[in-house]
């Protein structure tokens, strides 16, 4: 890419950070330039975040209706999904799924709760609750 073609379409998501990109300058030499953002990337990132929000909201509704435990909500809220959480906690997916049932979730030991919380990067008390609107 030519240096003068560098896209500079900043977006608030990037919080003012820029990204390095190798480009060709007027003398035909490669050098590292900075770009503030590029529309296709912004579109893709926005889409990914929206999908996570959608799944989080869906899980939250399920928890409120009593069909699922707070664990499922926090899993999506912390940008994970079932396969990722299962690998991270070192369990099979069906084992983690069992803890999505509210009746099983309340029976979890404090140690198990703390393990889940650590993997998700939140504290144990937060994991047991869901946000009130």
């Amino acid at each position, binding site marked *: *890419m030519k240096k003068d073609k560098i896209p500079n379409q900043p977006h608030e*998501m*990037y*919080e003012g*950070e*820029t*990204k*390095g*990109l*190798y*480009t*060709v300058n007027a003398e035909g*030499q*490669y050098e*590292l330039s*900075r770009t503030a953002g*590029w*529309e*296709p*990337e912004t*579109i*893709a*990132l926005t*889409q*990914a*975040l929206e*999908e*996570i929000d959608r799944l989080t909201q869906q899980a939250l509704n399920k928890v409120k209706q009593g069909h699922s435990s707070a664990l499922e909500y926090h899993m999506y809220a*912390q*940008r*994970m*999904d079932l*396969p*990722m959480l299962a*690998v*991270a*906690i*070192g369990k099979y997916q069906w084992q983690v799924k069992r803890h999505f049932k509210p009746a099983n979730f309340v029976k979890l030991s404090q140690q198990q709760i703390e393990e889940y919380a650590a*993997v998700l*990067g939140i504290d144990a008390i937060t994991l047991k609750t869901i946000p009130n609107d």
Partner: protein
Amino acid sequence: MTEEFIHTPSAHCETGTVSNLLRSYGLEISEPMVFGLGSGMTFAYLKQIKINGLPLIAYRMPPKMIIKLLTWRISGLKFHYETFRNADKGMLALDEKLTQGNAVGLQTSVFFLPYFPQAMRFHFNAHNLVAYGKENNEYKISDPVFSHLVTTTADDLQRARFSKGALAPKGLMYYPSEVPDSIDYDLVIPKSIRFMAKMNGRWNPVPFSGIKGMRLLAKNIARFDNADQHYAQLFMGHIVRMQEEIGTGGAGFRFIYAAFLQESANLIDSSFLHERSTEMTQIGDEWRDFAVLCARLSKKRKGQEYSDAAKQLNKIADMELDFYQRLSKFKK
């Protein structure tokens, strides 16, 4: 050294980390050189490995592979790797190296590093950075993808180093244990180029990597007309994210490689490599056009068909095949 760590911003975390680290240990080597001599450029489409329900698409060698190939090729260069079972021990070992005044490379998870913009913090466990000092309870970090130096608290760094899941870093810490005075470019440049070309080109036996991987992905995209549209749109956006965002993939890597070819051409005085560098730049531009198509498809803009994106990807595969075949027998 601790105070005056020279932070050279880079396009990619792993190659940038290695380049910055080696420079601080006295070996002058640029980021594109690390990427090129480590034969880092490739393509892989791994359907079995899912990230948020979508397959892994990689544009470079798996994490740590570039360092391994680099030490394999450059005689007299050795890296010391250390992982830890116990997080506290891992932090103590890091502190010890830092008090000796040595910078170290660390593998971390982006999700637990608060200096990243919130929108960028995903569970990606193979982010590399350099720690070069500690003051009070804060670590001084040279993160190659940032334009400036950053700091992070001990708690956050510990969480990032000991995050769980796929590619879990297990506190991985590495630094060069032996550094050569110079590199025999006449020997290593042709070798690393031939290796990269063979790995991706016609004789590559792996059906989901290199040129074959691109064609496989193109075939998949062409079938999306009949697929679940929500999934197909997410998939197209995912391609762009894998290509441009996570670790500055796809096109970014093509430009790093073109920069490597240009630097090599000057070092070993080869006009052939100069031409190949220009060619790679064009291929990189085609990748960017492909990203534009994918982004439009992910938004379902009118006038865009999945077959257009598939066609563009096949065109890139043709161009890259030609490129690889020319380089697979490269001799100085």
